[in-house]
């Protein structure tokens, strides 16, 4: 604690920035953990639910249980789009979703938009983790270099190069690098971990989109 309090103004500023990076990084790591875990768990459950039911309207009524799944969001948007087109065409049967050829394109667009939106949501704040992982060690290194510069300046002024004069300055300076690494290491690990999970989810969304498009196409052909 004394090391931090005795440090110079620039080193203190560097330490403050690094503490900010560390606090926000950990907040994002917790945030991502909650989001990604829930998304993966509910996506798996939603797929089971989706394939167990044959009718879109039944699936649409049970969506609230899977509110954190990106696949559920895709299905909800598609379902809303189909409902709107159904309302537009009068005299259609309620139990069968009928689709024309133009409707397939609209569904594809809706799916693409929903996927983009969900990908953005899942990748939100990950860039901050990447920035922390790459920049924090350098910011810490800057604090260390500055602190050592001051320490050597002090040695020059006192004219004594004893360990008692040199050691405190260097020790204070090295705190900045240590804190930089403390902030960067979890950020890098978190970034790689969550990026991998998000990529898996994006792959799932892609596959699910293709499945929905196929279903819509089959529906239009049967019509």
């Amino acid at each position, binding site marked *: 604690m004394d090391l931090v309090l005795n440090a110079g103004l620039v080193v203190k500023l560097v330490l403050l920035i690094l503490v900010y990076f560390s*606090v926000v990084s950990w*907040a994002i790591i917790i*945030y991502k953990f*909650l989001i990604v875990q829930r998304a993966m768990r509910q996506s798996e459950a939603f797929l089971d639910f989706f394939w167990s039911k044959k009718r879109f309207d039944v699936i649409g009524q049970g969506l609230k249980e899977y509110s954190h799944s990106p696949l559920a969001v895709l299905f909800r948007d598609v379902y809303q789009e189909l409902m709107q087109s159904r309302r537009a065409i009068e005299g259609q049967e309620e139990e069968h979703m009928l689709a024309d050829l133009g409707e397939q394109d609209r569904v594809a667009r809706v799916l693409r938009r929903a996927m983009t*939106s969900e990908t953005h949501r899942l990748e939100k704040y990950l860039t901050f983790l990447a920035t922390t992982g790459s920049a924090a060690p350098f910011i810490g290194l800057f604090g260390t270099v500055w602190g050592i510069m001051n320490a050597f300046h002090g040695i020059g002024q006192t004219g004594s190069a004893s360990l008692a004069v040199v050691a405190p300055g260097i020790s204070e300076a090295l705190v900045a690098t240590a804190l930089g690494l403390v902030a960067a290491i979890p950020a890098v690990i978190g970034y790689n971990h969550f990026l991998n999970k998000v990529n898996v989810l994006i792959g799932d969304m892609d596959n699910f989109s293709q499945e929905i498009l196929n279903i819509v196409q089959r529906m239009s052909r049967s019509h």
Partner: protein
Amino acid sequence: MHTHRLQSSSAQFHSDPKIGRLILVSLVLHVLLVLVMSGTWFGPQRRDQAPVYYVDLVHKPVLDPQAGRPDPRPKAKPKPAPVKSVAVPQPPKVVEPKKPTVKVAKPAPPTVVKSELKPDPKSEQKLQSAIDAMRERQSRQAEIDALKQKLAGLQDTRAAAVPADVPVGMPTGTGDEVGVSMLAYIQEVIKQNWALSPYLLDQSRLASIEAKVSVRYATDGKLVGFRILKDSGDSQFDDSIKRAITKSKQLQHKLPQSTELTVVFNLKEMAEARR
């Protein structure tokens, strides 16, 4: 518009956790981590700090052991005293040999009277030989006294060369040098003028208070100024340091150059030195 509506409905659908709240949680976690690391939660773990000793391994030993002492070596005062004290016993010794001559003179008349009464050549001869023997003894005694006086004189000169009660320095030392380590000399002067209250000395068991002061002296040994680089946080302690420096405003020796040095005042170290 349609996109905005969808996004807002999507946000309602998800109900993601608030990042602001999580930042607060993260901040609390960081504070807890700092508390755990600093040992605040595990009770006071005060380590007894050992006093710091500064040993100068670079400078050569001082030429004269007197060097570094703020008071100059006592010089001329003791010199005349031993010379006088040795010279005093001389007169009585010189007078003493005169007394027997008087004593000899006194018994002489009766012998003369007797000889007048009874002129005896043998007795005259005996008397003459006795007088001769006495004179010979007197001359020897005078010689011995002269030699003793000479010996005393020689001892006085040797005693005057090395005054008593003063540590003897190196053969080449002159006795009034400042010493090789001028900084050590100035530090010693200031620290000798540093008076600590008994209360503060008791406090030294609890905590090691330390202050760092930069002091500047001119070539004539006069204090130019001082600056507290790091105060101790204890006003009494700081005041005692200021008093010590003000007391040392004039050194008794001139310095080869204007000097600025940093003096570390450590309460624990001083307290142990005083015990």
